[in-house]
């Protein structure tokens, strides 16, 4: 897979292989926090940040620690621990030193500790044998793709709430999943451009 340039990979991670709309990962915070646009973008920002860094860190851990010792089978548990520790460290540091950022992103950080999209990005990068640079770019791209998806849905849901009445059975997750399905179909249009699987 080394022939894919960083720019292409970045584009693919956002559009053709959007981690939320094609892999359907990270759905739980997506369903619960997409009620308004602002909060959705806040959560999305936190995901971009965490995904970029953990993809990089996990790449180092996997290739510098696990692979040389033939411990690749521990990657799930190790990735999860690394992500959790990273999120907690960042939360503490941001709360202390960057109160303004904490206000925007901080409260969402604990929510995404166990977000499967973040673990998913780390695992995909291993399966697809990315280099370190590719892993970081892929992490950032996937994060931005996730943010894009939740942002779009957040905006649509906000609009729906203000302007129309939903049948009770469709409120909340129901309508969100329908919108997600339609969006997912729309994103399939991109899929002919590049393939990274």
């Amino acid at each position, binding site marked *: 897979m080394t022939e894919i340039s960083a720019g292409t990979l970045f584009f693919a991670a956002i559009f053709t292989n959007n981690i939320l709309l094609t892999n359907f990962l990270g759905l739980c915070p997506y369903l619960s926090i997409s009620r308004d646009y602002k*909060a959705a973008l*806040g959560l999305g920002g936190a995901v971009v940040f965490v995904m970029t860094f953990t993809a990089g860190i996990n790449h180092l*851990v996997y290739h510098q*620690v*696990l692979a040389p*010792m033939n*411990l690749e*089978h*521990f990657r799930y*548990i*190790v990735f999860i*621990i*690394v992500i959790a*520790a990273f999120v*907690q*460290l960042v939360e*503490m*540091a941001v*709360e*202390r030193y960057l*109160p303004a950022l904490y*206000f925007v992103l901080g*409260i969402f950080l604990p929510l995404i500790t166990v977000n499967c999209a973040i673990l998913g990005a780390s695992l995909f990068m291993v399966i697809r044998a990315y280099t370190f640079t590719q892993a970081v770019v892929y992490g950032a791209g996937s994060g931005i793709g996730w943010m894009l998806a939740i942002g779009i849905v957040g905006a649509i849901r906000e609009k729906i709430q203000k302007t129309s009445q939903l049948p009770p059975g469709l409120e909340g997750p129901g309508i969100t999943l329908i919108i997600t399905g339609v969006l997912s179909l729309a994103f399939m249009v991109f899929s002919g451009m590049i393939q990274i699987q």
Partner: protein
Amino acid sequence: MLGVLAVSGLGAFLALLLEIADTYIADYGEQHIFVNGERDLVVQGGKPLLFALGEHGIYLPSACGGKGTCAYCKARVLEGGGPVLPTETPYLSSQDLENHIRITCQVKVKETVRVEVPDELLNVRQYHVRVLALENLTPHIRLVRLQMPAASEGFRFKPGQYVQLEVPKYKSTSGPEFRAYSIASASHEPEVLDLVIGRVEGGAVSTYVHDYLKTGDVVNIRGPFGDFWLRDSERPVLLIATGTGLAPLRSMLFQIERDRIARSVTLFFGARTRDDLFFFEELREVEKRLPNFHFVPTLSRPAQGDAWEGEVGRVTRLIDEQIPEGAQMDVYICGAPEMVQSCMELLEKKGVPSDRILFDMFA
């Protein structure tokens, strides 16, 4: 073997990092809280304001135990609370925001904080009390009787108010947990306090009460809190409860009996089966002693063997059938939020003004 060592080593390294971060980054030193511009409290920084105040004996009401879901711990924070967090905004009206009202369990003390606490809450105190008796009223509801200090030590409450019951750490919790429970006993006998506690699946406090609490144990309670108490008026009173929501209304009934309040009082009490209908005999006795009191129990799903001849259906059916349009009455409702909500809607449809309806939701 190597694998176990490597993964443990990595885990230990990350734990060490977090420990260092916790010591150096999350340390906010000692901070001051000024209460009502007078009392100056010194607390370890970084804690939620609700708990920091609690350490100094100032107990704000809280039903959810600091999880940011009940919004009872509102207080005016004049300085040092930082920006209003997105976890608070759903519970704050624009008026609250203007008045600098905050949800104190979400506000962390990172600098000098000035907070205003209503005077009556400064009287709220914590008591270490012994469990006098435990009785299973139904398979899912337990009566907890507590020995309070002598009346001279000043535990006074209004019938309908509630206390916070704190239980120690046990197998399913990571520390002491507390929840709010209405007082079910008479206010003129404050030396003995009855709480009626239903088992909540997975509930930290109710599980402890049902499975671990023993007679003779000592627990902490704080209170009294709440504004769900009987208001003076001449109008007839309608009390509506389902399940453990009967607790505060029982206390009100004791008050009505003792103070010889001559208003007509009706109690609609909804339960599922005859087995769930606790305090039944006792309420029938009260009915015999009080000519102006009518007890109307109703079963939503009477069981085969119940031999039930009373009302069947939910309390909303009783309202529908027995309350005339435009009824002049004061209504007190207590129980699950959905029940309270549907009763209120029905009563308002019947023309009972909303300011004559008081409720306490057991979320």
